């Protein structure tokens, strides 16, 4: 698959799906009016990658400054997809990066990830930007 990259915008995060190195990154703000429209192609790409994927560890790094409720819903779909793939045997590590003083984003990470029983994940504090 061809590497998927989208630059960050005011409303949407940077997207970098580097299939060759199995490293996936979403980073920035996420508050588009219609998150389903933005995340739909990303979910499709991820679904295709999981279907085609050979053995090897996939790393997913998520680092958000802000996520609105519509995006929260889409991230739930994304993480549910990853959890399902992990349940089927895929090796996936999710890193949820939060700035040290951002309790809300840390809490959202817990809310989104704590019920994903098959995923390996960690919530990592990062220095203030």
């Amino acid at each position, binding site marked *: 698959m061809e590497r998927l990259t989208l630059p960050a915008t*005011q*409303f949407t995060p940077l997207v970098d799906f580097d299939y060759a190195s199995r490293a996936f990154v979403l980073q920035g703000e996420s*508050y*588009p*009016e*219609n*998150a*389903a*429209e933005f995340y739909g192609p990303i979910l499709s790409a991820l679904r295709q990658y999981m279907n085609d994927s050979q053995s090897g560890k996939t790393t997913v790094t998520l680092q958000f400054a*802000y996520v*609105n*409720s*519509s995006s*929260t*819903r889409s991230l*739930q*779909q994304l993480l*549910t997809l990853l959890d399902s793939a992990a349940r089927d045997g895929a090796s996936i590590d999710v890193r949820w990066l939060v700035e040290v*003083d*951002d*309790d*809300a984003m840390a809490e959202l990470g817990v*809310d*989104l990830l704590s*019920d994903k029983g098959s995923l390996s994940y960690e919530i990592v504090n990062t220095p203030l930007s």
Partner: protein
Amino acid sequence: MSSNVAHRTMPESSEREIFSYSGAVSAGIVGATGETLRARLASLNVDGQRARKIFSSFVELAYNIIHHGEPEGARDVKIVRCGAVAVWQREQRYHLRSQSLISADNAPPIAQRLQTLRDLTPEQIRFEFRLRLTNLQYTSDASPTGGAGLGLLTIARNAVEPIDFELVPVPSHDGRLQLTIHTVVQ
């Protein structure tokens, strides 16, 4: 809701006006006004945690106007939604108020959801948020664009007081009602 909040037009002497907007509400305007609010909060040295909560509630209130609001003017004219959002500070608390028109059909379900939220404790709000997230894994919501009910729950999570609201018929607007939502962040 106390009438001085629903009908507040000028800050009281104990209050500091932080931001207000009234007019058309589109995604672009949410972005522009949101960035203005962020800059204003930074200029006032509002700490990061508070500023993030204020911004979060502001965005949810503004998108709520887009997703549930009724257009101003004639019903057969397709124009953007209109509404107002104000942010002010009283002592160490930050108040946010949104106002918009909603249809008579939309009013009962929104009032029901707001009433339910108003009666929940912070622990129950957190539980409901997680429950809603979990349920999203197993259900497809009818509305593909919104937050599937997470928006009002997010506002409630950010708040230090129960969300307050008021629905008032607007006689000149063909049965539509004015919805006022008031929330307080600390």
